[in-house]
């Protein structure tokens, strides 16, 4: 009986300790939006990402204050007026790679589909986006480009600046994950 318990214990515990976790604390996320009047762009290289190689689960944390704008006033307005970073300090994504069990990582990029919940400005939304992934020199590299509708996340653009601020923002994600 005692053996059996130990056996069960092993079955349940082994996967936990053998989880193949890849992560980064300085991933790059940048965004770009364009109107005839203004181009707005910002970069953030303090993005945390964790990826579970066993089951394809992935988790992002993007500190809003980490976005750097070329224009200090824009950065202040971004934090104060739009993202309200004192109330919502992080954007997050929690999801998984579709069909992960059928994907074999190689050292050249292959397309994947990510599905999960994106939370920005305190508003959560289910998304499904394309990305690329490869495995090279013990690191997993990820790359994704997608669009975000500002209105989807309850971010209000007042009438007076509507000409200057785009409703759709292009987001670029670049990651180098190393093994934990």
């Amino acid at each position, binding site marked *: *009986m005692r053996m*059996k*318990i130990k056996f*069960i*214990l092993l079955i*349940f*515990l082994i996967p*936990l300790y053998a989880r193949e*976790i890849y*992560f980064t*604390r300085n991933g790059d996320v940048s965004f770009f939006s364009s109107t005839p009047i203004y181009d707005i762009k910002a970069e953030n290289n303090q993005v*945390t990402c*964790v*990826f*579970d190689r066993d089951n394809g*689960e*992935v*988790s992002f*944390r993007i500190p809003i*204050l980490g976005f750097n704008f*070329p*224009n*200090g*006033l824009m950065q*202040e*307005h971004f*934090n*104060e*007026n739009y993202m*309200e970073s*004192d*109330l919502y300090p992080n954007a997050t994504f*929690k999801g998984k790679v579709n069909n992960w069990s059928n994907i074999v990582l190689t050292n050249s990029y292959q397309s994947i589909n990510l599905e999960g919940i994106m939370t920005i400005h305190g508003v959560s939304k289910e998304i499904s986006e394309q990305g690329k992934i490869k495995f090279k020199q013990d690191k997993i590299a990820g790359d994704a480009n997608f669009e975000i509708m500002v209105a989807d996340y309850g971010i209000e653009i*007042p009438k*007076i*600046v509507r000409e*200057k601020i785009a409703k759709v923002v292009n987001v670029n994600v670049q990651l180098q994950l190393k093994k*934990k």
Partner: protein
Amino acid sequence: MNRVILIMLVHLSLIHAQDELLELIIEEKDISIPVQATFKATRIVNAQSIELPRPKTLEFMILHRFGSMKDRFYNLFGMDEAVIRFDLKYGFNDKLSFGVGRSSLDKTYDFFTKVKLLNQTNGQNPIPVSVGIFSKVEIQSIDKDLAMIDRLTFDLQALISRKMNRSLSLQIMPTLIHKNLVEDEDALHDLFSLGIGGRMKLTNRTSINFDTFLPLGHRPNSFIQSWGLGCDIETGGHVFQLMVTNAQGSYESKYVEHATGRFENLNLYLGFNISRVFSL
């Protein structure tokens, strides 16, 4: 018994499987988060705020005060007259700025600098307040016969501010104004006062602002304590500040020491500040 243990184990492993992935690697590091946007503009109403022009930006500001409202409709609540000051200031970095200004009141030129010594931070090892120094030289040129040395007035202020929460910010300003030339013999050359100011945000882009200067030490009987009550409206690269105040001059020696208006007869001034920012 064994069944119970088995169930417990299953539960235990399920709980583990649901562990947030992020928690596996996040360590609570010493993060201190600098507080930004204590005020929207470089002025509260009349008084200097802790804010500097942003690094590598040029800020042009027009400070416009109408005439006294005491004649009501006869001169449209003072709008037939105006005292204007405009200035141009540059932020070298987030700690140092320099500017020049000119006011139509006493045809006064001024040169000023604002230095931020300490920035309020939240998080690990918080710093409770932001501290800055503001200093200015005023050169009046309305009196053609004065020697240069007699035209000068010096202002020195410490700006101590705290953003209490996302809408309320408060500031105190110990102030010294030194006049090289005074009106009569027993008037003081050095005048001390304590400024108090604050703002309350109404929405993300508008706020109600107030400031006043309490005199410290002797003042003549004609002295009136100055105050200003205004609201900020922010629109992209501009900040509009609309106000009612009892001081018509918008440079330090005038609005701190030479307020002229009283509530009686509506002897107050309407005015506005506009700032426009240029990135260089």
